[in-house]
Structures are given as structure tokens and as C-alpha cells.
């Protein structure tokens, strides 16, 4: 078993400096997914590991009238403890579906989003909420919409060498939302996926709508969403059928079992707009 050098930077500047000098170093905060997927007695880690779980800059949370800001090393439990008054319900529901309370005490929101092997449970909710992530590297800081962390091929596209430091989540009003998890709750497998839907209605018209789906691949159903915006609510039976078909067409690449579940979840979400 290879031995790794483990570094504990005292602040964000030192962490970024370490990452600049040691390209390829593994950034570890909670580490749950890294250890879970290895399973056996010993853990195999890259030669350099940078522990960021105690960096004060990555553990802050802040609330303004317009958005919630969460440090990337905040654990899922700590975020849930912010409570209903601070946390958008769709995000609270997504985080409460992650494994169990003991794993949520370790797992961080940054790790949930920066996982390169597959999409984890928070992505669809953050994508629906138009959350942005701050990515830092030696070159500086960039804010990126969480949607853009899914590549053209719908696979995770977290930039190499970047460190996610915080998330900014707009606190907009959403009139309807739905979130469902498919597959085992306590560990991700190829069937595991999360579906999220949110809609806003202004004066009887559907003014905003988001639909996101994430498992081994992820997508926002942009084309179908755009076709629905401007429709009157409640939707007519015909409009619901047309929308359902458009969403299913967007998801045609999914394996059959997931496509079927996706279709029924879309129907349930559209039912909310048919009332």
C-alpha cells in the first residue's frame, strides 16, 4: 500500500499554494465517497493529500435577503441544521435523502458536488435553484453555475486542479417543487438517481420552471423547460401530454429502467401544475 503525504493547511491561501505546487494532489474534506468506494481494509490515496475540512474560509455560512452562502466544507448535517427559515425546502429535502445522519455528519456539500465519478444527491436541487459555485485555483477565483459542472456528454465536468470553496444559492420563491430519489438510499449504485423539479407562477402564468436529473449522468431539461414557460396554469390535459413528451424526448439517452422512472416522475411533477 502506497504511503501518501498528508498536508493540513492552516488557511485557504496555504491550501491553494499547496495545490499549485503539487498538481494532482487529492483534496479531502469529508472523504466519505473516497473511502466508501474502496471498500477494503486499506485505503489507496494519491501521493499527496490536502485536508481542507478545517479551513475556516470553507466552513462559513451566511444569509442575506437575496441568497444563502455555504462554505464547501460544511457538512450536510450542519447545513440541515440551518433550518427551514434559511434553507430552500428542495435543498433540505435533497440533503436529508443522503445516506443516514452519521454519514451526513461527515460528508460535505463540496464533496457532494466535486465528485468526479458520478453526480451525487445535491446536484439536481442546486441546479434547479440556479446555485453558483466559487472555484479557486492558482489563477484566482471563478463563479460557475452548478449546471455547468455537467459536461456536454452529461458526465461530471468538475475542472481539474480547482478547489470549490463556497456555494451561493439564490433565495427565490418557488410555488411548486418535487424531489425524488431512485435506487438505494444509503449508497450510490448505477440505478441511483435524483430528480428535482421547481416552478414559479406569476399571475396565473408559468414564469420559471426547472427540471434536473442526476445519477451517473446529469441534465437540465432546458429545451422542454423553455417550451413550457408562458403557459397558463393549471395546464390543460393536452399541454401536460405535450410537455411530458418533450421531457421524455430530452431524456431519451437514459437506460430503459431509469427512463421509465423519469417519465413517471415528470408526470407527477406536471400533475402539480395541472391543479
Amino acid at each position, binding site marked *: 500500500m*502506497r*504511503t*501518501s503525504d498528508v498536508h*493540513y493547511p492552516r488557511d485557504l491561501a496555504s491550501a491553494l499554494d499547496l495545490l499549485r505546487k503539487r498538481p494532482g494532489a487529492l483534496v479531502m474534506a469529508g472523504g466519505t465517497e473516497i473511502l466508501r468506494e474502496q471498500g477494503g481494509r*486499506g*485505503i489507496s490515496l494519491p501521493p499527496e493529500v490536502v485536508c481542507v*475540512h478545517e479551513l475556516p474560509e470553507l466552513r462559513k455560512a451566511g444569509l442575506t435577503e437575496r441568497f444563502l452562502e455555504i462554505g464547501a466544507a460544511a457538512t450536510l448535517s450542519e447545513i440541515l441544521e440551518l433550518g427551514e427559515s434559511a434553507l430552500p425546502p428542495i435543498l433540505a429535502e435533497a440533503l436529508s435523502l443522503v445516506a443516514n445522519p*452519521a*454519514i451526513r455528519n*461527515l460528508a460535505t456539500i463540496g464533496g457532494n458536488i466535486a465528485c468526479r465519478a458520478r453526480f451525487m444527491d445535491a446536484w439536481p436541487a442546486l441546479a434547479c435553484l440556479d446555485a453558483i459555485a466559487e472555484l479557486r485555483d492558482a489563477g484566482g477565483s471563478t463563479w460557475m453555475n452548478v449546471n455547468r459542472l455537467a459536461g456536454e456528454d452529461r458526465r461530471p465536468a468538475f475542472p481539474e486542479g480547482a478547489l470549490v470553496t463556497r456555494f451561493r444559492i439564490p433565495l427565490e420563491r418557488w410555488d411548486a417543487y418535487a424531489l425524488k430519489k431512485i435506487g438505494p438510499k444509503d449508497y450510490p449504485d448505477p440505478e441511483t438517481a435524483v430528480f428535482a423539479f421547481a416552478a414559479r407562477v406569476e399571475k396565473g402564468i408559468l414564469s420559471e420552471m426547472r427540471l434536473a436529473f442526476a445519477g451517473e449522468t446529469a441534465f437540465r431539461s432546458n429545451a422542454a423547460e423553455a417550451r413550457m414557460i408562458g403557459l397558463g396554469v393549471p395546464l390543460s390535459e393536452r399541454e401536460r401530454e405535450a410537455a411530458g413528451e418533450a421531457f421524455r424526448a430530452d431524456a431519451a439517452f437514459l437506460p430503459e429502467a431509469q427512463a421509465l422512472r423519469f417519465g413517471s416522475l415528470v408526470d407527477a411533477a406536471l400533475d402539480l401544475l395541472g391543479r
Partner: protein
Amino acid sequence: MTVSFILNGDDVSAKVRSADRLSDLLRDQFGLLGVHSDCRCGRCGRCIVFLNGRLVPSCLVPAFKARAREIVTIEGFSQTQEYRDIADGFRESGMKTCGFCDGPKAMAAAALLERKPRPVAGEILEYMSIVPCRCTDPEALVRAVQAAAESKARRLYRRADK
């Protein structure tokens, strides 16, 4: 590398490799055999420990992350009044566990009661899913944790009266 931390109230140090899991460190170097290391993927809940007061599966924690932290295992927890409250409650409710999961279930119940002194059934089942051993039926588990909550509340009220 050497890491120093507090284990069951004592200052300790241990030589660890980056490949070690905390569960294996606690068993192999400190002989804490109440920390089981069965699934090594966080599912069985039998390796749970309190890490800085938070319940975590120690198989999902690299041993080097114990550095400068406080760890309480079932061996340490079973010496506390908190544990006795829960054990009393479990016994009063008549719940029978299989012996493999009684310690972890008591720790999960303690973590829940710390946050929710009067938990409802849904909260109990959610928290006790940390230790998904099927030896106990869910209704008995809910009764046992509620009895433990009563037991803890009685002690705290007695202390407040004095």
C-alpha cells in the same frame, strides 16, 4: 506519521499510515473491539464513534483525520450516565437486541436525544437507520428510544429539582 488525539477522555498518540481507516486504528492499536469493522463502507453502523461530539462511521474516516480531535467509542460511552439512561430505557421497554448492535444502537439513540429530547417515530427510525441491524422490529425500536428519552428526562428533572 504520528497523530495525537483524545480517546475516551485520555490524550493518546498513534503511528498511522495514510492507508489506515480509523476503525482499524481503534481496534488494532487500542484494542477497542467494540468498534467493529465489518462492511468498511459506512452501511452497517457497527463502527460508529463520536468524533468531536458527532456520530460518524469510523470506517469512513482516514486514521490521519483523528489528529487533534476527540473520539469516544462504545467503551468510553458505556461509562457515561447518558448510556445508563438509554440502557435503562431499552430494558424498561423490553427491547431485545442481538448483541452485535446494542452498543451502536445506544450511541445512535444518544445522538438523537441530544438533538431531539422528545423524538417522534419518524425521527427515531431515520436516526436508527444508522444501525440497520434487523434483529429488532421498528415498533419496538421506537418504543425503546421513547422509553430512553423518558429515562433521560427523569434524570435531568431530578437533577434540576436538587
